[in-house]
């Protein structure tokens, strides 16, 4: 791809001739069309792709909020199991799910260890050393914690991955009737984040080139942050001007070029999103494992 050659003047003597020669030196670079990144889809799952972005948010809430009212192993594991199976059907196999959501599992392991080692003691004591108390109660509670963090966070992350900000903004304005001025202003600002990242990089290079790049890292970051703030305000002002020039923020009611609608598939998704915690919580009640989170126990 980046196979490259360059003609070079070999000696200083030949240079004057080379300089005035009709054919200039050439640097061959990778063609830009090869550098283009692949188009991204709004989700790896064929099912999630079809759901309205706003539904994705609401569905995630429906799925996770009920899971907070009990602390048992059974409901957490049931929900987690159901979610993995459903995602598999939806087109993402469990291994892929784990790979996409690895930070969730680090958090889950953290929760597991905390409760496992330091959790409230109950039942048989398996191991005791200092403040570390491993008991029957702490073992089951730690497994429950692990599964619960996974069951709540994993589907939310999967649903959020690949979410298109423009589509979400459309949904927020058209379905939830949020102020277009606020939503589209925020959307345009979001696009600026990439520019700010480039600005930060360029500011760092410029400081180095101007002899200001040595010395304490902390001070460098502080001054550079201030420069970035100044630049971001400049950028925001320019962007606001461009948006105003296109009639944004005027008195006319804004119309919508893209339709954001709730389809049958969204209702199916809502049903599934509700069914998961219902089944999981029922399983806990039926098996007698229900453990009310806000109880006095």
């Amino acid at each position, binding site marked *: *791809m*980046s*196979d*490259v*050659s*360059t003609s*070079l*003047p070999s000696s*200083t003597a030949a*240079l004057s001739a080379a*300089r005035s020669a009709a054919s*200039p*030196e*050439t*640097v*061959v*670079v*990778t*063609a*830009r069309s*090869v*550098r283009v990144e692949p*188009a991204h889809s709004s989700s790896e799952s064929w099912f999630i792709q079809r759901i309205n972005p706003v539904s994705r948010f609401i569905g995630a809430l429906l799925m996770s909020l009920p899971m907070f009212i009990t602390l048992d192993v059974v409901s957490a594991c049931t929900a987690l199991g159901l979610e993995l199976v459903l995602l598999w059907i939806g087109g993402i196999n469990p291994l892929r799910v784990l790979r996409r959501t690895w930070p969730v599992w680090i958090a889950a392991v953290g929760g597991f260890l905390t409760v496992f080692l330091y959790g409230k003691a109950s039942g048989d004591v398996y191991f005791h050393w200092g403040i570390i108390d491993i008991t029957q109660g702490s073992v089951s509670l730690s497994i429950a914690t692990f599964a619960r963090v996974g069951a709540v966070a994993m589907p939310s992350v999967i649903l959020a991955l690949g979410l298109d*900000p*423009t589509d979400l903004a459309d949904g927020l304005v058209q379905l939830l009737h949020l102020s277009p001025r606020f939503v589209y202003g925020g959307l345009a600002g979001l*696009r600026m984040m990439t*520019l700010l990242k480039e*600005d930060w990089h*360029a*500011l760092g*290079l*410029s*400081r*180095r*080139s*101007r*002899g*200001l*790049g*040595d010395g304490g890292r902390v001070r460098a970051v502080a001054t550079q942050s201030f*420069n970035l703030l*100044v*630049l971001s305000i400049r*950028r925001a002002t*320019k*962007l606001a*001007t*461009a948006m105003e*020039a*296109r*009639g*944004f923020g*005027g008195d006319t*009611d*804004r*119309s*919508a*070029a*893209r*339709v954001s609608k709730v389809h049958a598939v969204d209702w199916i998704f809502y049903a599934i999103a509700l069914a998961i915690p219902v089944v999981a919580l029922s399983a806990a009640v039926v098996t007698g494992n229900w453990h009310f989170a806000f109880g006095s126990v």
Partner: protein
Amino acid sequence: MIARDTATATLPLSSSAAQVSAHGWGWRHSGRKDFALRNVSFDIHPGERVLLLGASGAGKSTLMAAMAGVLGGTDEGEQEGSLSVDGLDARAARGHVGLVLQDPDSQTILARLGDDVAFGCENLGLPRDEIWRRVRHALDVVGLGGISLDHSTSQLSGGQRQRLALAGALAMQPGLLLLDEPTANLDPAGVREVRDAVRRVLDATGETLVVVEHHVDIWLPLVDRVIVVAGQSSEGLGEGIVADGRPEEVFDRLGAQLAAAGTWVPGRQLPDFSAVAGNERTENSAGSADDSAYSDSSHRSRTVLSTHDLSFGRDSQALGAGLNLEFHSGEVAALMGPNGAGKTTLALTLAGLLAPISGTVDYHGDISRGVGDADGADASSRRIVNEPIAWRSRDLLGRIGMVMQEPEHQFVSSSVLDEVMVGPRSMGRSEDQARHDAEELLEQLGLRRFGPANPFTLSGGEKRRLSVASMLAAAPQVVVMDEPTFGQDFTTWTAMARLIARIRDEGKAVILVTHDEDLVTTLGARRIMFAEGAQR
């Protein structure tokens, strides 16, 4: 009924061309003593195509923003007189005027091509079918019709993004199209793309056009009227509208005066600053007696910088590889080629700011002498001495100077004078000496009167000159400049070219990244062309 039918049956993008009238109009930015522009009076008739000229900093962009109704309210400045579009105050007519600016980054609003064009139509509250009809037509007219509406706007070239901005304005059927240096950031191919797109737009719509551009040759075939403005600070021509008429009239009658005041008049003779022949250069090295290379007149040009099997790029993605280039003292080398090819990346790598992906950038001779001495680093290591990426930041001062692509990235001070004094101060010059050097540089680049002003309040062309001045203040041996002549009128352009020639004749190596063919010709620079390789 009938009237409505005919209205909908007209050409998809035809709109009634707008009339613009200014009467004694003026604007003073809050916090500035002088008016940016004053006593501006004109009537631009529907369908007229106007080229707006003026020196760098004359207030052209201010006038454009005012006509677009986006200049801001009373907290941002003070207005006098009146400015109206189709009889409406320009602010009230906002949204009925299409504005295209020079910086594609600040006018791409949404992530997908079609959505971005539709944005303005949505704000006008148009029905959906109408929006998409206009979007497709606007994209066709500017020559982007072949690209999917879902295409990511961040992956368009500079020329494409400017045409996208044009399409966004066009879809609103504005009646008045304002273009503020729309091609300033583009390579020659991009300039032609945009100019041709504008021509098609005007042929299709008959809209009124006002375009600002220093390089008049691009737009002259398209315009039928030239208006020249001068701000309070402009010298020689007076204030407000200094010329107004058909292009040939204006240039015939006032050509010499306009040229003297810095306007690029058509067919203008370029100065010749190509390298002085032979031994003249050696006199410049008289001061450095220990410099053997200079005093040896048979090698008046020595290699100060070379690359060896260099791969350059960002984020470990190589743009070019296997590069063996040499740069010489007393030579101007110009990196040229299309937007986005990687010229800037190579320039940053040569300047010791970006690490090579593989291979090396080596500095030779006494440029690297003394690098790393101060803190007792291992100066015997070849790498530390020759490869600038391993140098400390302070060691770059006095050795390599870089003018960044975006001048605003360079500013670290709150006043123009301080900005130029940063380098000399860091190099341990006395305060008086630093001030003296800084003021001299500012004088040369026509910025002296801005000494106490905030760098961010300068015009685009002035910012560019300031970034050059602050880099030169650190007296580098190798000078790397990314688009040094951007936004300059003829006077400041000539001053910049002369300054570059002087640096070269002092025996320094100059590396330019530029699209400016005239500059390369004037300096007789060595060209290094970037070309895209075959795909795979």
